[in-house]
């Protein structure tokens, strides 16, 4: 039988719309969601999205989601969450994990498939819980248990288990530390912050702005169609609307050492539980569903830095990813109406901004002719960010994406002008994920 000659590749990349999002309120660890699993939270976030956009019983092209802290039972987290959700059970799904970049990377993957015409719609998501973190047995005990499992005869099993000693029984709880340096993320950041001379006052000011902006966003109903309550919690419970520089100034540093330590619990994000989702689609799909795109997903970029050998700070990768993304899109750092720079720590945001203004960094490290320059700070994290909302690792990307898309739509409708926003997220492992939206 003669083979069919393949059709010529006529497909062009399609525009990808961000249609909206849904997240559950973020909760400080060991609080409101102490008994919720990643799957519970992700399922709730998907169900809220389904309710908002009328997706109950519908099949979506693909659901891509992940979690940073995962139980072994969560190996198929996205798919299991779909099966427990109101989406049609015929909706495919897969898991990804890229530390704190997980949520935004999931969106890039969904967007790319939509652009290529492989799917017409998709949901990007992420969930993380530090309250329900997987606890592993110690490495020695694990080896003994596996040996006992391999033993055929009961007596051999018993013999293998006889090797258990009391010290083996201490559980191994996941640490918020870099495997290759043993240092916590905060301690890494403290080194970078000190190198860049980021002051305590600037950090506290940024933190206060984050709380005030998020509180104002709640007050004007901005989050009414971005958040669905979960387990009785209706707002992010890390939010302190009355936060002040004076109050934050009283806190003792928790990262770094010596008199120059500047990073406190007030200007660093706390451990948080939560989940988020974003609905992306082609223009045609959006139209068929009677949904108006909030924004267009224009492009995304990922970078990594060598923090292991001390070449660069752990959380500096976005400083590299952004200029590459700008160059590819023919834009300058000032060509944006809004900037969403994830507040892992206040000092992270301030360091990135300072680095982009720094002649030496921009020419030597980034290989540019001149610094990227300063941004208009009134356009930064206008609806608050992770310092106020909290930061359930894999859920942060979806939170930012949906919120920025909505802000862009409002601005575009208000002014009748095209608008543009930049997202920048730093992640463990020296990673950074960034993206551009337009409306």
């Amino acid at each position: 039988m003669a083979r069919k000659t393949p059709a010529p590749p006529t497909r062009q990349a399609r525009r990808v719309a961000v249609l909206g999002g849904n997240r559950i309120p973020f909760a400080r660890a060991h609080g409101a969601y102490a008994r919720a699993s990643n799957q519970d939270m992700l399922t709730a976030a998907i169900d809220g999205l389904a309710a908002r956009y009328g997706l109950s019983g519908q099949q979506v092209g693909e659901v891509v989601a992940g979690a940073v802290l995962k139980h072994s039972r969560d190996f198929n987290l996205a798919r299991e969450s779909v099966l427990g959700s109101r989406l049609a059970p015929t909706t495919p799904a897969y898991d990804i994990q890229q530390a704190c970049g997980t949520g935004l990377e999931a969106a890039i993957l969904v967007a790319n498939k939509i652009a290529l015409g492989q799917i017409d719609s998709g949901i990007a998501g992420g969930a993380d819980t530090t309250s329900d973190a997987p606890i592993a047995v110690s490495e020695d005990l694990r080896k003994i248990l596996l040996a006992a499992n391999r033993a055929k005869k009961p007596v051999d099993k018993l013999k293998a288990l006889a090797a258990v000693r009391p010290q083996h029984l201490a559980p191994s709880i996941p640490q918020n530390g870099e495997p290759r340096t043993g240092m916590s993320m905060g301690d890494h950041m403290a080194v970078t912050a000190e190198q860049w001379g980021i002051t305590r006052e600037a950090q506290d000011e940024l933190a206060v702005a984050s709380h005030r902006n998020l509180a104002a966003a709640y007050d004007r109903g901005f989050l009414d169609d971005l958040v669905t309550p979960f387990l009785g919690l209706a707002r992010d419970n890390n939010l302190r609307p009355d936060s002040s520089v004076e109050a934050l100034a009283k806190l003792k540093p928790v990262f770094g050492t010596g008199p120059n330590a500047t990073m406190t619990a007030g200007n660093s994000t706390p451990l948080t539980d939560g989940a988020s989702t974003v609905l992306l689609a082609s223009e045609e799909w959006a139209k068929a569903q009677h949904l108006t795109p909030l924004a267009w997903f224009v492009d995304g970029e990922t970078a990594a830095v060598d923090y292991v050998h001390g070449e660069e700070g752990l959380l500096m990768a976005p400083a590299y990813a952004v200029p590459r993304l700008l160059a590819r899109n023919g834009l300058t750092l000032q060509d944006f109406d809004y900037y969403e720079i994830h507040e892992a720590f206040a000092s992270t945001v301030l360091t990135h901004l300072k680095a982009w203004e720094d002649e030496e960094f921009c020419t030597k490290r980034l290989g540019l002719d001149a610094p990227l320059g300063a941004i208009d700070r009134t356009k930064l994290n206008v609806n608050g960010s992770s310092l106020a909302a909290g930061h359930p690792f894999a859920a942060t990307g979806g939170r930012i994406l949906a919120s920025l898309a909505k802000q862009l739509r409002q601005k575009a409708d208000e002014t009748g002008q095209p608008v543009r926003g930049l997202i920048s997220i730093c992640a463990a492992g020296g990673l950074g994920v960034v993206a551009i939206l337009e409306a």
Partner: protein
Amino acid sequence: MADLFTTIITSPLARKAGVPQPTKLRRYTPGDPLVEGPVLVAGGGHFDTSLANRLEQAGAQVGTALEELDGRLGALVLDLSAAADPSDLVALHAIGAPAVKRLAKNARVVVLGTDPATLTDVSHIAAQRALEGFTRSLGKELRFGATANLVLATAADPALAESGVWSAVEFFLSGRSAYVDGQVVRVGDAASPSAADPLRPLAGKVAVVTGAARGIGAEIAAVLARDGATVIAVDVPQAGESLAKVANDVRGTALQLDVTTEDAGRRILEHATSRHGSLDIVVHNAGILRDKLFVNMSDDKWAAVLNVNLRSIIRMNETFLGGGGLGEGGRIVCLSSIAGIAGNRGQTNYAASKAGVIGIVEALEGQVRDRGITVNAVAPGFIETEMTKSVPFATREVGRRSNSLQQGGLPKDVAETIAWLAQPGAAAVNGQVLRVCGQSLLGA
């Protein structure tokens, strides 16, 4: 869940001791026969011939004299719309009394009359007005889940009223009206088309239900969706978790919104038209209670209740009835309450708001009539919900049993009445307040 008191008074012992026992009411599920048992249609009024035909088409066994029918009657339709003098009411007793004796469990008595307000002759008016007293008393005498209701035609020409009268009669005969007893419905002359698919009379309609996260609102959403409508479920953002569940259950959409916000109407309308293409049915169900004796009531409690239960409805209706809002065939149904009719100790704010709702309906009736839109209210009595669970035990038990059906109603009973008023077939019912109260003694 039955509480201890209910368990005791419905026990075999209590039954022997003569404590009146509630009957399990006949409630509608799609596909049910209209009535259970033969129907006697009599009275010699303007409508009995056409109604008998319609009933036969609906699959009922119909007779025009009691002797023609075997066994217990599913319903008795007494058409006295032509009674012009009290002497004409002799027939009412002559035909009615033997038939009532033969009523089956959960049977229906529907009396037809002519609205006295449309008449001029004293004897004529007296005869027609008499029907109301008769129906309300009969409702109190009937047992075993049977109800009695009165349909009054307001049209001068019975031919014009016929389709509307049928819609009301059909509602009262069906399981949809299980908890509606002793009520009067006035029917005008608007043409009332029958549904193309009787199982989905609301097919193609877009409905918004406020306060849909729980209780009566959640049930309204379910019933409207069952009847074919696309439902937008609205509730405050704090209730979003259960709201999402309701919206997903009915495959509709959730809109987290406080109805008291200034632009609530615009946001609902925008959501409805952009997502679903139109807005056809509005159910103002969101409501709150803040009970306190008048003299002890704080300004906040007073204002909050009036704001949510009354002012928000007025404001949203301005949008819904404005340009780009409800079109021909549009429906607005508001939740009033028997407290708004009878008054209730500790509920000055609530009763004021719910009486105000009746004012809205009365005021809008004339304004919308020519546009093919109707505005009606439903006044529930004691309905088993979270709201009534919060009422103290003794008060609750009295409320639950002080009605002709000797039981509380279910959210579904309120929802079924609203779903009927939302039908294209109910076009001739406008400006009415229909109580769903099992003929409560309150304000009766």
